[in-house]
């Protein structure tokens, strides 16, 4: 029987981050992954001959630079490139582009409204202020307001001090920002539908909320608090696809002496006498360790892998009611040539950015109403990108791959399971929307992979296909994530920890939950986290 110091259940990006830090701190660590490859939802896979897809996550901006540096990811092959721009196509045959150049951006907005063009600067400043407030909290364990331990108290004081740096009017603004809907928030700055629609996208991506739901302004922040080399809010793309992130992590891990076992699905986590002692694999093999860290979501971990009877009832109750309904789907399309968008000027840089087709907030909200009723959206909100325009190495020259993130897509169809016919009908809404703006689009399609919450759950193991391993509502943030009293990566079982996106600060390819979990584990082991650099300053 194999024995390790620590086992990581699931080789997603957070599991690998925790694994790397623990291994580097001198523990003997093994990552157990059910699939034949690691990466979880951050993978690049050749699903059609000659085409490499980032088939789940598709944007790399949130990943913390501190982690990239600590784990020497550039040395292990990670390179992140910034998006060039983007566009929303409007139904009248025009588009709203976003350009990196400030004046071009302003003049583009001014095509629709001079007022909005200038209001954008104040909007960007106000959002950046909020980002600056939240950013330092990402790499810290959330304090337990009812923990009453010195560490919790000092962290609470830290939070109070951060907040206290605001002027009274900024404090009031912050309280508003955190509780507003992105739609209401944007209404205070802008008058043009397409501009509001373009800016609202980040308020809903990945969430089971519409742009008119309170709390979506915060979700926007969640997507903005990333950075590409210091430029806050910029979105980037990992060369080689999102798999490059997890590949670099696994190389870094193996280089430090760690063990990765693929095709090693964990069936049960042992818990005896309130302690874990290892896991048993689906194959029946037992693997022992004093520490088990679960990268799986909180429901899979505690309702499937751990024997419920060994857990406190309240805890199980809360886990059962943890909300993680899937709300998005993904359609990955291989194309034999670059699609044309006649609305765009010739050789527009927009094609190297994110492309959207939803030009009003109302259309987004109606798409959400469909989801509430248990249907996929008839007029979905797409966040598409043609990564091969930034990274031609992912396929042969001239061929392209289009990543289409689709909102909204329910975990069950009107209460029943997804069928293949449902899946195809869902994909059709996506293809037909793109084809409306790109003549001949269908003829270019070589291969298509459609992923509804069903596929995300089955392959990646995300319960209900929720890409954030838990919805980002107030009751599931900070000290409430995933369960009040258990928001510090520890579980009711001694030696069993959580490191996935179900924990603070939540989803996105950020790595922060993995790093914070490693920090708490090392603290319990009374080892100093020497390999862990301090969080970057926000000055």
């Amino acid at each position, binding site marked *: 029987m194999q024995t390790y110091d620590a086992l990581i259940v699931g080789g997603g990006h957070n599991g690998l981050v925790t694994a790397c830090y623990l291994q580097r701190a001198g523990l003997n660590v093994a990552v157990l992954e059910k699939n034949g490859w690691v990466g979880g939802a951050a993978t690049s896979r050749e699903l059609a001959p000659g085409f490499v897809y980032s088939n789940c996550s598709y944007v790399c901006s949130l990943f913390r630079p501190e982690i990239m540096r600590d784990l020497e990811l550039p040395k292990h092959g990670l390179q992140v490139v910034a998006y060039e721009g983007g566009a929303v196509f409007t139904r009248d045959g025009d588009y709203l582009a976003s350009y990196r150049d400030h004046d071009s951006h302003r003049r583009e907005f001014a095509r629709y409204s001079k007022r909005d063009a200038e209001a954008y600067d104040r909007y960007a400043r106000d959002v950046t202020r909020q980002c600056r407030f939240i950013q330092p909290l990402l790499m810290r364990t959330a304090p337990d307001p009812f923990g009453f331990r010195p560490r919790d108290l000092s962290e609470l004081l830290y939070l109070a001090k951060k907040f206290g740096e605001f002027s009274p009017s900024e404090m009031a603004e912050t309280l508003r920002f955190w*509780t507003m809907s992105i739609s*209401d928030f944007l209404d205070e700055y802008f008058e043009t539908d397409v501009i509001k629609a373009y800016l609202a996208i980040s308020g809903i991506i990945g969430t089971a909320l519409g742009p008119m739901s309170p709390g979506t302004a915060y979700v926007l922040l969640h997507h903005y608090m990333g950075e590409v080399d210091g430029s806050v809010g910029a979105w980037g793309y990992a060369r080689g696809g999102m798999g490059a992130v997890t590949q670099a992590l696994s190389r870094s891990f193996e280089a430090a002496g760690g063990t990765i076992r693929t095709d090693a699905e964990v069936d049960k986590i042992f818990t005896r006498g309130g302690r874990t002692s290892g896991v048993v694999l689906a194959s029946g093999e037992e693997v022992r360790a004093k520490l088990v860290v679960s990268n799986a979501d909180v429901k899979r971990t505690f309702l499937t892998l751990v024997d419920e009877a060994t857990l406190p009832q309240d805890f199980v109750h809360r886990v059962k009611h943890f909300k993680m309904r899937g709300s998005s789907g993904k359609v990955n399309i291989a194309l034999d040539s670059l699609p044309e968008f006649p609305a765009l000027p010739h050789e527009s840089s927009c094609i190297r950015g994110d492309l959207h087709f939803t030009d009003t907030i109302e259309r987004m909200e109606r798409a959400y109403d469909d989801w509430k009723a248990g249907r996929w959206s008839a007029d979905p909100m797409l966040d598409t990108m043609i990564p091969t325009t930034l990274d031609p190495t992912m396929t042969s020259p001239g061929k392209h791959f289009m990543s289409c993130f689709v909102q909204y897509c329910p975990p069950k169809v009107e209460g029943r399971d997804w069928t293949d016919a449902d899946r195809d009908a869902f994909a059709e809404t996506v293809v037909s929307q793109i084809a409306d703006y790109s003549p001949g689009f269908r003829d270019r399609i070589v291969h298509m992979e459609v992923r509804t919450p069903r596929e995300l759950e089955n392959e990646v193991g995300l319960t209900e296909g929720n890409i954030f391993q838990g919805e980002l509502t107030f009751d599931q943030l900070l000290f409430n994530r995933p369960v009040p009293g258990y928001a510090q990566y520890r579980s009711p079982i001694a030696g069993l920890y959580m490191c996935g996106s179900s924990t603070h600060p939540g989803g996105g390819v950020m790595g922060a939950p993995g790093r914070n979990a490693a920090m708490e584990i090392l603290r319990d082991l009374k080892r100093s986290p020497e390999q862990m650099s301090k969080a970057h300053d926000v000055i």
Partner: protein
Amino acid sequence: MTSFDVPARVTTNAYDAIVIGAGHNGLAAAAKLGKSGRKILVLEAASAPGGAARGREFAPGFRSAGLAHLVNRLDPEVARDLGLTLAPKSGAAMPTVVLDGANEPAVLRGAYGETIDGVSVSEAEAFGKLREKLVYQAGILKRFLRRPPPQLGAIGIGDISTLAAAGFGLIRKGRAEGRDFLRMLLMNVADVADEYLEDDRLKGLLAFDATLGIHLGPRSPTSLLGLYYRLTGEVYGKAGGQFIPEGGMAAVAPAFLKAAEKTGVTIRCGARVGRILADRGRASGVVLADGAEFAAPVIVSAVHPRTTFLHLLDPAESDTGFLRSISHIRTAGNVAKLDLALERMPNISGLTGRDHNGRIVIARSMEHVETAFNPAKYGEFSPDPVMEIVLPSLADRTLAPDGACTLSALIQYAPYKLKMGWAAGKPAFLRIVLDILERHAPGIGKTIIAADLSAPTDIETEYDLPGGHWHHGELQADQLLINRPTRAASGYATPIDGLYLASAGAHPGGGISGLAGWNAARHILSGAKR
């Protein structure tokens, strides 16, 4: 209004304070100020006091007592202080009946369902657990309603002691309850109800009560706040109760009026204020629409904050950012009010005669409320709305001729900004509502003598209420406490020295509680600079 020339003439202050608007908050403020011996003048635009609690004849021989058709949050301290005796002496709690059109009604008795008829024992027990939790949590929040919101940057002893008391209240029940409070505070009502309850009628009721008068659906995050707000109200010392006063809702306005008059307050009706006089940041009086001028060092505006700053005060007296935030107050109403004149008392299916005295809620389920909300987001009314019904003439026989009856319903969702316009939309919406009533009270249609539907646009006109919103601004998380109505005018004082806010648009919000006006007066009397 293009010019706001400030008259150079100085009139002597015949009054210590002028209150604009004789709604119940204006009267509460005037009564409280009057009690201190000061000379107070209340100016009311309408021909009678009472504001939205002002009665009106909506059909020959049939009267409606105003916008509100029951009392559920009159603050006991305000009532005691101002000598308001409104609650019926009988002490009998008014029940709430939930109709879904298919099953027998669920009837909540006592204060917000201390006992429930028509549901299973286990369900009643589950509701009791949830009720206990919500009432406890609402009790913690209640501490913040009776005092001005804390002033950031100048937190005072009072703020700290309120916070400390709230904190103590939280830990008193142990860690688990404290944690649960912080988890639930900004949740949606749907998830909470789903966690505790099975019965669709009860869930529908909670969804309805949480969202009534608010532009949110039960699945919108923060919608639980609406229910907390409802449960901060108490009757006979019990949270969540409701009643119709002895003599009906028509007794509400006179009670506040009497409280004010008792303290020597002068009330002038038919006196529409045209402008608030101010110069370089200090208010000095008002000018009526007819040109009459009154001077006073303190002006208390118990009308909508938007009216106050965009129409009564010269915009040149306010700063741009302030006016911008005032214009950003979301205050589009979502509720229509229906008054029906009926030949006789309707017979509502499945209801005992006695329970016709109750509040009757038509909401089949949480989904029903949520689905009713969807169109409102796009400026359309609900084709299948939810509503709350009261038969006012049962408590007040004077409202209808002998043997006849009135029915009052609050119906949502009926958005202020209706895309098709209310002129065209009203007949269609009325038909929908009457069809629903007919389903629940077969034959009621034939007994209708008159039907008067007030869309939010009508409510706006009738009561000078921008957006027709009875809270004078959305009661949502981002428009509460230090952000109500907006930061620079939270806590009753405004950027204009001597000008105070006392309407539902100020903390803590609407409903017949009297708190906004009473708190404002206390703040003015405290002499605090801000």
